[in-house]
């Protein structure tokens, strides 16, 4: 066990939820940097070295605050934003280095649902055209067959086939999100990036869309990257959760564990900040209120990027970039103040950094 664990640590890989399963997507050291025009060599490091595997049939929740790079990561996987470096392995091909034409072929298997159902549907196209367009693009069906397929897709997402000739403005937010889902499903994908799919919707409609996505996952064996800032939604839909802060993953674990037992101080604060819909719980729980704002991703802080807001910061945190280390079985965290032998930051002596050696090794 211990040798196996060291190996994992050394390669800095996030272990499978099911031993032996092959990942559907293997993301390796992915970076997306944006050069800012104008003065100086200013670079926004939106995604800065993300390594994670996504397994068939799972929902990986990706959570973080605005500007942390979570949407850019989702878009970079699909090459909707060009990665600066790194790999995205899918069916033994590196998506990050395919030609545009090859990538277009692969998009059939990799789809996306957007946050704003108002902005992501062409207002001049009917529902039938919107959902049917991918069938035409990928030459999957035409004529009567395509029409039947569109009707079937609308029913799958809970819309009446009578809507086929209507236009987006005639629908509510929740219905438009269903249209977006039908369009993504048209090409029978393996993998869907759901980028804040419920954030613009009313509470009662959010539940409907989450249930729909879960039903479709069961029926069609879909794999999701579910991106959201809403920790309650993430907890509900995800099998595993990855927490992102200023371009880097800082903690990865299964959804239940990350809520019950967060290890890294940022995750602890994030989870304690979520209001619980229960006045009895709210009256008694301790909330970690972080000081200050998220720093700018232009020239982010040196060392651990969270050190400017961290209540547990020590000098070494300002120098050393903490790697994502398997602190407990299948539970990864990036913090030099904890280690597999000392997972509880509260119990670490002041000024101590039990994870420092591993961090320095990883850098070396």
């Amino acid at each position, binding site marked *: 066990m211990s040798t196996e664990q060291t190996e994992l640590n050394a390669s800095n890989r996030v272990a499978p939820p099911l031993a032996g399963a092959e990942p559907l997507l293997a993301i390796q050291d992915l970076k997306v940097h944006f050069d800012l025009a104008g003065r100086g060599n200013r670079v926004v490091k939106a995604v800065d070295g993300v390594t994670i595997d996504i397994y068939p049939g799972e929902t990986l929740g990706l959570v973080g605050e605005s500007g942390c790079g979570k949407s850019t990561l989702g878009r970079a996987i699909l090459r909707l934003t060009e990665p600066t470096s790194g790999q995205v392995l899918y069916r033994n091909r590196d998506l990050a280095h395919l030609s545009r034409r090859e990538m277009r072929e692969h998009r059939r298997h990799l789809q996306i649902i957007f946050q704003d159902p108002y902005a992501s549907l062409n207002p001049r196209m009917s529902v039938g055209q919107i959902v049917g367009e991918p069938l035409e693009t990928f030459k999957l069906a035409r004529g009567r067959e395509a029409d039947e397929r569109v009707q079937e897709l609308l029913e799958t997402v809970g819309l009446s086939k009578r809507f086929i000739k209507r236009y987006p403005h005639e629908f509510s937010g929740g219905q438009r999100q269903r249209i977006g889902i039908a369009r993504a499903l048209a090409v029978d994908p393996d993998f869907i990036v759901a980028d804040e799919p419920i954030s613009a919707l009313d509470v009662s409609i959010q539940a409907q869309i989450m249930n729909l996505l879960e039903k479709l996952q069961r029926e069609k064996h879909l794999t999701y990257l579910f991106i959201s800032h809403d920790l309650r939604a993430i907890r509900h839909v995800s099998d595993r959760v990855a927490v992102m802060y200023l371009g880097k993953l800082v903690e990865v674990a299964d959804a239940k564990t990350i809520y019950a037992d967060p290890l890294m101080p940022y995750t602890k604060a994030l989870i304690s900040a979520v209001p619980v*819909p229960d006045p009895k719980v709210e009256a008694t729980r301790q*909330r970690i209120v972080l000081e200050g704002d998220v720093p700018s991703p232009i020239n982010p802080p040196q060392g651990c990027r969270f050190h400017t807001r961290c209540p547990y910061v020590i000098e070494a945190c300002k120098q050393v970039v903490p790697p994502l280390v398997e602190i407990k079985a299948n539970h990864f965290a990036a913090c030099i103040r904890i280690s597999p032998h000392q997972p509880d930051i509260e119990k670490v002596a002041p000024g101590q950094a039990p994870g420092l050696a591993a961090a320095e090794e990883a850098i070396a």
Partner: protein
Amino acid sequence: MNTNGTLLEVKDLRTYFNTEDGEVKAVDGISFQLKRGETLGIVGESGSGKSVTNLSLIRLIPNPPGRIVSGEVLFDGVDILALKEDDVRKIRGRRIAMIFQDPMTSLNPFMKISRQLMEITQLHLGHTRHQAYDHAIKMLETVGIPDASTRANNYPHEFSGGMRQRVMIAMALSCEPELLIADEPTTALDVTIQAQILELIKTLKQATGSSVILITHDLGVVAGMTDHLLVMYAGKIFEQASTAELFAFPGNPYTRGLLHSVPDPLAEQGELYQIPGLPPDVAHLPPGCPFAPRCQRAEEICKREFPPFVQLTADHHSLCHFAGEVYEESKAEARP
């Protein structure tokens, strides 16, 4: 000052809008009270009338297309709806202040923060420029803006979303209002910043003794912040109770559905309860109960007759033909 401690009493308020679709009864006959020092939460989905209620209280309904058709808004015993516009202006911003969802659109982008704060106390408290400036800096410090005297010279775009909301709170509290109305104050903010802002509102409320009306769609936010709750749907109050009572024993099927459809991070996963159907089209409400088309326990009477506002306990009311039964079910469920 009123002797019974009631700061605000709203009686049968109705605000309608003329639209291409016909007359929309955005707020349709709502009544409630707010005591001094208390926090009242108003919860509802889009189109429920919660924000129109808020704007009606301070007479900020654009006319046309909107108009307050009837009702009384007794603020410290005086009916705001019967006052002259000049007299309303003396109350608005001074005795009743507001914070809105989007601080960027509520601040003037061409004015330095200091001037925006100074305007308020110069107008309402008759401060000189000098007094107003000192007061502005003090308020910015109170709401936790670091290095306030430098930051006061910045423009709104130089602040982050959380900092702008702090500026809005500083402006709102400048004249120590008796009532603060916060309409979705944290909806546009990240969760760690939301925690900061809610904590700040709580602390300042305790320090000043102001009453607060907190309008939100987030049941988690009201759970920790409010004493009483109104649940609105289709322009009506569907349920009204103390926060603890309403969460523990909801007496309305809509409230029950809403509470069940929020994922609880502390509970096990599983299929989420979902309220079927779509939020109501307020321009075309069905006869009978507006929630009936989405209600799983609706019976014939619900589609035919408008439901009564049933009193369940001294301060717990529910708009439902079956309020008593729903309330008993909630109690039975809570008694495992």
